[in-house]
């Protein structure tokens, strides 16, 4: 085996530290259903907050689907995440109305405060930033969401306040 190939294998082995019990339970639930890949992946994401690589290999093995194919599905749908995500997901609307009203500055403010841009997560796994197309609240543009809470007519100053509020929370 070449050195590189061996490294790749070791890399995969390192990833297998994750407790696969939850993933196995999800797979058990859907294993006999035709077209089970999507619900399995959604279930795994619900259990782990993202899709750990080891669970992909587990699903590949148990569902008899190639890992490459699962990876294709995971990268096709925006709903799946391959890296751990923060406890609080900050969605910054970049739709037309928000864009006109200065959504770019809001994004910059988050980078400044948390050091994270689109699809990035803080090291403490507390925040993830996501720039989204439109969240359907153009009337209160610019708008951000933190998990399920919506903050409209937001400014750079208000963004800082919102972040501080969540920082203080667990």
């Amino acid at each position: 085996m070449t050195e590189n190939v061996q490294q790749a294998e070791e890399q995969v082995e390192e990833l297998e530290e994750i407790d696969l019990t939850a993933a196995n339970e999800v797979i058990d639930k859907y294993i006999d259903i035709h077209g089970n890949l999507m619900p399995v992946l959604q279930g795994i994401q619900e259990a782990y907050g993202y899709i750990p690589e080891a669970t992909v290999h587990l699903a590949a093995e148990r569902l008899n689907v190639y890992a490459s194919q699962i990876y294709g599905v995971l990268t096709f749908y925006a709903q799946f995440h391959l890296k751990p995500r923060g406890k609080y997901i900050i969605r910054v609307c970049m739709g037309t109305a928000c864009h006109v009203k200065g959504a770019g500055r809001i994004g910059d403010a988050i980078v400044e405060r948390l050091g994270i841009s689109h699809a990035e997560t803080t090291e403490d796994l507390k925040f993830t930033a996501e720039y989204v197309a439109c969240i359907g609240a153009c009337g209160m543009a610019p708008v951000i969401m933190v998990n399920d809470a919506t903050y409209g007519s937001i400014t750079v100053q208000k963004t800082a306040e919102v972040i501080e509020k969540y920082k203080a929370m667990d």
Partner: protein
Amino acid sequence: MVNLTIDGKQITTAKTSTIYEAAKENGIYIPVLCYAKKLLPYGACRICLVEVEQMKGRLIPSCTTPVTEGMVVTTTSDEINKVRKTVLEFLLVNHVVDCPVCDKGGECDLQDLTYEYEVVTNRFQGEKFDLPTDEVNPLIERNMNRCVLCGKCVRVCDEVVGYGSYSFINRGFETKIATAFDRGLNCEFCGQCVSMCPVGAILPRPFKFKARPWQLKDVDTVCGYCGNGCTVTLGVKDNQVQTIRFNEDTGVNHGNLCVRGRFGYSYVNDATRLTKPLIRKGGELREASWDEALVTIAEKFKAAGKDLGIISGARLTNEELLLLKRISSALGTHHLDHSGGECYQGLTAGLNETMGISASTGTFPQVEKCNAILAIRSDFYETHPVFGMVINQAIRLNDAQLSVIADKRGKLSKLPNARTLMHKPGCEINMINALCQVIIAEGLAKTDDLQGLAELTKALADYTPETVAKMVGADAEAIKKTARELAGAKNAAIVVAYGLPYTAHSKEIAIAASNLALLTGIAGREGSGLYLCGEKANSQGAIDLQITPGPAGLGAQQMLNSAAEGRLPVLYLVGEDPVVTYPDQGLVKKALEKSFLVVQDLFLTDSAKYADVVLPAASFTEKDGTFTNAERRIQRLRAGIKSPGEAKSDFVVFQSLLNKLQKTAPAAPAAAFGELTGEVAGYAGIVYEQIGPQGEVWGGETLAPLKKVLIPVAGNEPLQAEYQLLVGSALYHSGSVSTRSKGPMSVCPEPYIELGRDDAVTLNVKTGDMIQLKAAGVTIQSKAKVDNRLPKGVIFAPYHFAGLGLNRIYTGQSVIAVEPSKL
């Protein structure tokens, strides 16, 4: 049949044809990028658009549209050309046009189409792809900047190979072909994707910057590795095999190859090839002339006479084997054999006793149409990878149920819906007996004209699935299901491989398998078959020509025994390296030391180092002749290059030897084949010059058994040992010659001892750690390889490597009790 008109031409074609296929059959050209004969229709590239009068208003993709009665098709018009040109413009927006340094230049479909449609300027502009090239593995380079997203690599790796390396990832403009998690490619390196890529996105690395395609001379010949008999097309330049070319129109393999066939050619160009005869003088092997060497040998052979032992490899051509047989009869010796441990006895003794034949009963293309397939031993994919792909196609295209009687998991177990019937090592016969028992007990047997049914029924009383399952750790329900499927299937196949690492119980396993084949009616039924596949390129030819001990003659193992005791004065090894590959290395060495040894080979092998005379031989790429593959297909080899130095083909060497023995020999392989058609049953009527690209199958597509006798064979008690070693083949190698080839060696360079995860934890061993195995007072050591295909307590080691000395503890057993420990 359906009638339609294409470009004004009246055409009649099969109902299942697409417009593209109908056009192609009739010599009408339609350009394609994503179409491939062996893959399911896909319709990704839109280059093949045509006009259909009945479907006006839009252009129709000809590669996915089935023909219908009365269809009127136009393949070229201003409108069509405009659209095709636009498609090319789109593709060229992102494609890096680095044709001067692209190895595909000259045979690139995109380049050819761009030229054909005169895409001189591009109306569209956009970013060029700037993706890193995947150079992680040594054999296959992927440059995704050249990719046109035809998906052929994705599809062939799934539909044909069953490995699934690739997928489309991301979406829209970002879409590209990638492996799981977009890592470097790490697969079985069969290179099917290389052969399918219409552009320079996937290329063979060893061929980089070696030659332009038009500089290569293409020579169709037969692969020299396993008994599958794949046609390989040598790409020759400067008297060297530069690469193996892709040709999906020839051979039984439709252009499919494995890592050995596609990348294992470099040994023929190797600088360490023997180029001159060597004679031992003053204790050392020194270069000598051919005449001196042949005179010395002829004298020794004549003096030994009936006490000469001849052991041949199974990679000699039929014509060479015929001459070797002539040599043995000229000298009056019956000590003639072709493989260690007489592993071929499944054919010569087993099938011969039950069915009166010594060959597989069906052909590979029939397996593709089977509904149920039973593979005995999981190593079948490793020994015959391209046959494994045929099995995969049967599963995908025909919904075949594959069951594998296995002591470890392997590639076959991973194929869709494969059922792995796990059992303790060395107990294959128990499992096959249990299948037979179910078929008889449930009244599923096709008992017409079977002899010995009563005796077999009685003998199988102890082999109910429950008893066997308990004894060998198997699943009784799975056995029953498999038995019912095999008995009920319209077409079914039973496949088993034999070879040097599988010498134990070879006769008994074959008898058990033929009992099953007879009870299910598989043997001799059109479309079904029992396949006993030899390890080497011409294993079947060696059986057909009876390169086996004559009356009172010794087999290979007995010859070595006898020589070790000083009772066989002269040994002649042709293309065999028993020191590395035969069971019981200690015995082999002693035998070679004690006898006057003549070795004829490509390299100064470990065995040749013991020789008194060494003759330099020619590889399969340097000779004409025929091989007979594991399905009885006789195919022609064609010389592509000249042998290095003074090396000669075995044919020429045997001719000279026969002359020295005052015998005549046929002048050329064609003449020799003519003679052997008169001597070998089944070969009669086959004309050398008329053997076409698909070969000639002797005995017909389905070989009928000459008799149908059921013979009870006893199973084996599982070995009682905490750790048990299995010896076998690794996918990347075949025999020992592949260990001299850069391709296989770059992905599997050294011996290893494979452990399951549980045992690795117990022994505190990780991949790469050195471990040792102790058996009967002998220890061998190697790097460990840990994975999840071995059950607890089972250890595996491949037999190809000289360095491991595996045959110091392997003496022909089916399973060896060992004590492993970390070093």
